[in-house]
């Protein structure tokens, strides 16, 4: 294939997506380069009976049944009948949508955390929109398995935050794969990692190059979007038979994908005032921000976030470790939720990802202490539906609605109790993890012969 043909194909793809929103969610050509080659694990029709179900849509159902068939959620309700299905007594158990983490570095900062595994920050230039996190992902990271034991069914792997534009993020299904393509969530849009604040200005300012200030950061974003808009316009003209095609440029291709609405912005941004500036930049260049991540000060601007339809992904209680994290409060997500903004609890951490439910519980407790009561059926959205929304996969997963992917997590009790454990995880209807059958659970190549291979838990 000549370079020219490949540019032309790219144009066709970009245009078709821009014209038809639904194309975003359809499965792309499985033969295309880098395409998902995800295959669901073998599944049988399964009826889980008598559980407490948090649907992810804000509902809580008691003594409810969940039927999984053909990899989809076939029904949620009471007294469901499916005589041919494998019957699972789930009384006393709780069922939620599979847990989704919008901010993970599994595979790109894999365990063991040695320098040889430091593949998350291409910290060689402030704009590296051309890099793709998936090209760093090591599928043998044992963190994928421990995350599975924490109920994680989907997760976005992002580049680090050294750069203004860190590169593309990739959304994975949390299944063991030999290659990253085996794990890629079919049809999920790409993310683009951007970073505000201290990290880019420290990394590059420390080397005597731009940016060294927050205003330098903003100039860097704007300059990049100007170039991206030109690139996109030139491509569009060429598609209409006008002028020359631009030379293919990986960096601009990704940025143009954002301007076309095909790639979703995930913006590391702690301070309220900086989030507001980022929204101004989005206004100037006419793109949308899907989510602010590490939005430690989001509670100061809930109306701004909700009116711009942007989610805020936050930790429960990380604070203070740098100046822009000094104003962190535990009630952050609860105050956002109360104001009607889209709140997400994320991990950014290979340990934290194992218990996003507990992180959410901390927020619930802190909020309850000041009279803001968030019931479980509402809090579960922070780590399921809202996360799926930010990743652009809410039509496929994130709630227990009919015909969605049968991605579910089964808990020993209320997921917001510290004593509760993940009993089972189903991904596309297949039993991917079973706490009661550790011999059947996945073990990465790296973990063979270690305690992790024996289950690592009583």
């Amino acid at each position: 294939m000549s370079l020219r043909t490949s540019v032309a194909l790219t144009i066709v793809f970009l245009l078709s997506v821009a014209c038809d929103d639904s194309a975003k969610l359809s499965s792309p050509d499985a033969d295309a380069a880098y395409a998902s080659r995800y295959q669901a694990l073998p599944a049988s029709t399964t009826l889980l009976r008598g559980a407490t179900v948090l649907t992810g849509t804000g509902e809580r159902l008691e003594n409810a049944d969940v039927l999984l068939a053909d990899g989809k959620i076939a029904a949620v309700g009471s007294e469901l009948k499916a005589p041919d299905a494998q019957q699972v007594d789930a009384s006393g158990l709780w069922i939620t949508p599979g847990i989704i983490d919008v901010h993970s570095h599994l595979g790109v900062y894999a365990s063991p955390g040695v320098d040889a595994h430091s593949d998350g920050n291409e910290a060689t230039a402030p704009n590296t929109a051309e890099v793709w996190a998936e090209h760093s992902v090591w599928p043998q990271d044992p963190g994928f398995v421990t995350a599975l034991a924490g109920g994680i069914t989907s997760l976005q792997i992002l580049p680090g935050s050294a750069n203004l534009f860190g590169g593309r993020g990739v959304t994975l299904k949390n299944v063991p794969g030999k290659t990253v393509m085996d794990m890629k969530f079919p049809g999920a849009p790409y993310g683009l990692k951007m970073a505000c604040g201290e990290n880019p200005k420290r990394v590059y300012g420390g080397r005597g190059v731009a940016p060294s200030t927050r205003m330098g950061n903003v100039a860097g974003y704007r300059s990049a979007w100007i170039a991206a808009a030109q690139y996109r316009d030139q491509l569009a003209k060429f598609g209409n038979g006008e002028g020359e095609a631009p030379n293919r440029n990986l960096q601009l291709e990704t940025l143009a994908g954002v301007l076309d609405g095909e790639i979703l912005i995930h913006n590391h941004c702690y301070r309220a005032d900086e989030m507001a500036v980022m929204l101004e930049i989005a206004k100037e260049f006419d793109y949308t921000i899907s989510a602010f991540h590490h939005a430690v000060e989001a509670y100061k601007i809930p109306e701004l976030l909700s009116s711009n339809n942007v989610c805020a992904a936050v930790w429960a209680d990380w604070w203070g470790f740098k100046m822009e994290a000094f104003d962190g409060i535990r009630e952050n997500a609860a105050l956002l939720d109360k104001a009607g903004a889209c709140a997400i609890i994320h991990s950014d951490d290979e340990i934290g990802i194992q218990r996003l439910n507990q992180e959410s519980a901390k927020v619930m407790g802190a909020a309850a202490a000041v009279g803001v009561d968030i019931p479980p059926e509402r809090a579960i959205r922070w780590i399921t539906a809202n996360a799926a929304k930010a990743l652009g996969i809410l039509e496929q997963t994130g709630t227990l609605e009919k015909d969605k992917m049968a991605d579910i997590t089964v808990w020993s009790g209320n997921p917001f109790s510290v004593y509760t454990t993940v009993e089972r995880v189903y991904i596309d209807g297949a039993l991917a993890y079973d706490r009661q059958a550790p011999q059947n659970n996945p073990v990465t190549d790296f973990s063979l012969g270690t305690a992790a291979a024996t289950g690592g838990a009583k």
Partner: protein
Amino acid sequence: MKLRDLCTILLLLPCVLQAATTAITGARVHTVGPAGTIDNATIVITDGVIAAVGRNVNIPAGAVTIDADGKIITPGLFSAMGQLGLTEVSAIDGTVDGIQRGEQFSAGFDIAAAYNPRSTLIAVNRIEGITRAAVTPTGRTEPDDFGNVSHIFSGLGAIVQLGDTADPVVRRRAMMILHLGAGGGSLAGGSRAAAMLQLRTALDDALDYAGHKSEFESRNRRDYSLSQADLEALQSVIEGTTPLLVYVDRASDIEVLLALADEYKLRLIVGGGAEAWMVAEQLVAAQVGVILSSINNLPASFDELNSRLDSAALLADAGVVVALGGDNSVQNYNARNITQAAGIAVANGLTWELALRAITLTPAELYGVADRAGSIEIGKDADLVVWNADPLELTSYPQQVFIKGESVPMQSRQTLLRDRYLDWSNSLPPAYRH
């Protein structure tokens, strides 16, 4: 004049509060002492000390009574490792005092002089139940601007109480901090064998110095590997009175350390201990306790390949004394998350009672301060937390914290921020809401 009268005159208000007798009634009290758990108990506090605890306790006349019916009371929580009061914003050098680099000091570095009881972190954590903390200097393998790294000895830590009363440092020179394993090896020049040799040389020097102090001072003794201040600081370590808190994870490193401690008759505490469960029997035989890194079940390094979530239960079942608090995530900014570490340990097989003990009495015992803290027993300081529900549940929260009998203001910089932004009825800019 009695001491109390003296302080009443000099410092009227705090002393009045201390001198008052308080009775807290009606709660379920987990004493973590021999009395176990007592329902509908009364706790009497006099002069900041627990005067009585039980079901049939006479409340002295004139006591201030606090009704805690339906609540749960535990001892104040003990942060077993970390740099509380030594760090404000860890990314800002001028606010970080817990790390010493360069050759000037090592074992003699005494952290108590840097402790700041007014640190933002103190209020954030004490209103969540932390009343005592081990303040432990630590090291860095990354060089500073001058190319210096830390020594394998980080120096001497302190035990502090987090109340507003005078004298926050309750014990200086409470433990000596040492780094072994991969971290120690890196500090010592690239091999853990070098770290062991550096340790052995330092101990031999400290012993030689002990017997030849005057010769050394008149320059009639051989050179030592450490400064005189460092050798002085090591004296109580070689005497076996000051515990040596050792950052070590790999099973083989723990075994080598136990052998050396036996040879030199050292009092040891293992900090971290990711693979301690693999050498549990040796730890029991040597009567060495562990401040466990219990949440980190993934290997940050090859020293932790066999870390696992149930290691607290495995160690406890084998008879090892286990405190929780070795994970970074339950130190410093979020020392309060020690309850989460305990809850996770329970979910993975540790008994609830041992989990609570592991964040209260056990660390106090490891550091030799259990005569004053760690449990609700007559004669101990009245460090108490009144919880609305099960203290290990993350949806629970303290309603009142007492340190040495004084009720702590349930306020921090975070509650002030929260209240400012919770007040949506106020149309003025937030800066006017306070």
